[in-house]
């Protein structure tokens, strides 16, 4: 493979991997604490991207303001869908699939509301107004201010989240709720409060991820939806349990989508139309061959879970 291709695709892998990691952490958190495979996460991301776009168009071009408001908007959308939809629904004791359908429906509504708004205000396929600057140019290696925003911000956010979960009382409570909800109730933990905070936290990471994603490409109402399945692939690859696994999964999926795809194209002529299928093939293989994921701590197969 030509070195230029390798280096470019590796840079893309790292950028996309950071974005996937940020999104996959949100998915994992909801999955563990709320016990919901949340497809509406995609639209929390898209909301963040649109907020960033609108802020950059009409309010401020400062990256801090843009990313901050996008984070806030994601958190608000997530919290309000929890309060308006998910919490009342979970009282109905619906099955996981029905809840999955609920999250689908919430996502569908949000997505098409964004469609209507961007149709009305002509916001399709716009770029967040942060001008592109090339900061490093070393033969094949070109790095821009976008790369230097996406990667450090994502990684910082991931580390902050890991510290929050690992080192704080709230984090301990969330983990307790994740591993044993009944016990958490009995121990008198304020379960509702922890759930709301979890939604707030996942929403915030989603909003931030959306803004960063918007910086990486263009903003449109399908932005999150098109990324959600690879992100699920990353989360499952990580075993849906550990943070390290999720992050590893995210970078692996991004690596397969970019560098591996590039290599396949170079050596076998596989067209890029297949790119989107690569993470899906990974999900299926992982689920079938190693249901516990990369680092899984899930119980052995063949036992009570069946």
């Amino acid at each position, binding site marked *: 493979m030509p070195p230029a291709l390798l280096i470019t695709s590796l840079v893309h892998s790292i950028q996309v991997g950071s974005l996937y990691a940020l999104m996959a952490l949100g998915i994992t958190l909801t999955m563990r604490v709320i016990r919901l*495979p949340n497809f509406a996460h995609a639209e929390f991301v898209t909301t963040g991207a649109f907020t960033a776009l609108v802020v950059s168009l009409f309010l401020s071009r400062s990256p801090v303001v843009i990313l901050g408001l996008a984070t806030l908007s994601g958190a608000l959308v997530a919290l309000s869908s929890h309060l308006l939809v998910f919490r009342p629904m979970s009282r*109905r004791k619906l099955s996981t*699939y029905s809840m999955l*359908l*609920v999250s*689908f429906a919430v996502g569908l509504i949000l997505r098409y509301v964004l469609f209507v708004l961007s*149709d009305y205000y002509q916001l399709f396929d716009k770029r967040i107004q942060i001008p592109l600057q090339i900061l490093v140019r070393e033969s094949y290696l070109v790095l821009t201010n976008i790369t230097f925003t996406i990667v450090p911000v994502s990684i910082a956010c991931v580390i902050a989240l890991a510290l929050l979960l690992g080192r704080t009382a709230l984090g301990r409570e969330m983990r307790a709720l994740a591993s044993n909800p009944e016990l958490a109730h009995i121990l008198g933990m304020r379960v509702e409060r922890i759930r709301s905070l979890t939604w707030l936290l996942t929403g915030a990471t989603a909003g931030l991820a959306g803004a960063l994603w918007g910086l990486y490409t263009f903003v449109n109402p399908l932005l999150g939806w098109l990324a959600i*399945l690879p992100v699920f692939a990353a989360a499952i690859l990580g075993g849906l349990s550990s943070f390290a696994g999720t992050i590893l999964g995210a970078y692996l999926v991004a690596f397969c989508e970019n560098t591996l795809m590039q290599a396949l194209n170079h050596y076998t002529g596989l067209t890029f*139309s297949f790119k989107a299928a690569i993470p899906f*093939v990974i999900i299926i293989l992982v689920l079938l061959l190693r249901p516990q994921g990369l680092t899984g701590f899930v119980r052995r197969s063949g036992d009570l879970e069946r």
Partner: protein
Amino acid sequence: MNIDLGATLVALMTFFGIAALMALSLNLEYGIAGVPNFGQAVFVSIGAYTTAITYTRLLPLLAGKEVIWPCGPTLGPALQLRSEIMRSYPGAGFLNLAITLVIAALVSGLVGYFVSRIALRLQQEWFLALVLLVGGETVRIFVRSYEPVICANNGVSGVAQPFAWLGNPQLSSILFMLLVLSVAALTWVYCERLVRSPFGRLLKALRENAAVTRSLGKDVALARARVMLIGSVIAAIAGVFFVLNTGYISSNDFVVTLTLDIWVMVVLGGLGNNRGALLGALVITILDRLTAIATIQMNMSAIDLEFNYVRYILYGIILLLMLRYRPQGILPEPARTTNAHDLLTDPAPHVADS
């Protein structure tokens, strides 16, 4: 406005027949047996892709013509040839349709059977939903990237419905509607009979508690695989009619949204109730057509709102409201669903205690 009521009704009922097949299939799989098939689109698409292959490769042979490669530069001539055969060789058209249905049913049934067998390895139950969802996308991406199936992104057009040779569009569309409706009716009767049989009882037990059903000596994996097989066959038949109705086969049709539409029909109508599935299919079909007509009306009256977006928002809201306030659907599952009760109220089989 000048609505052609007859044609609208025929189109509506044809759509309804196809939607009913899809809804019955999902109702059997999820409503009755509790297998969360989030990959309905794949099984419908198997019917569609089979149609693409038979109509481009087999149909010319059946009419005694030479096969023209359906894609790329020869796309036009191949399309002409298909239309010509459909117009002048009704026998070849019908035979081709019959073979298409058989192949589609076989392939889809086998895929359903094996997917279910393989999926048993999955640890958490909802992983199955995810595998099917993602599997559907994978198949779709493969088909739209690999030319020989449906000419990749181009899709295959000119798959006329089997009565096109009559030369009278009204009559042929009515006949096609009758064909679709009668297949849907037969399927409904078949599903009703299944549900009321010991097989239906087994499936419902499976849905409620698979582990207990297993410990009562039932081969749960086999029952699941069988119901997936039947559901997949029905979905594939729906897929064949689906593309014959639009006359076009495109991978764009078989996205997650299609699966979601079918789920909405079943949840709306009433999980576990075949009549409910039919009702759900009817409601969604009417809603679909009404919003389509409303969109045209709104465009004519110069209201600048894209109703096609609003349609999806409506879907989402209806689904949420249903799940919130009537999770059992419009027509909930009846308590008595097997015929066994009639046997007991009947005094005859009451044999003496041993």
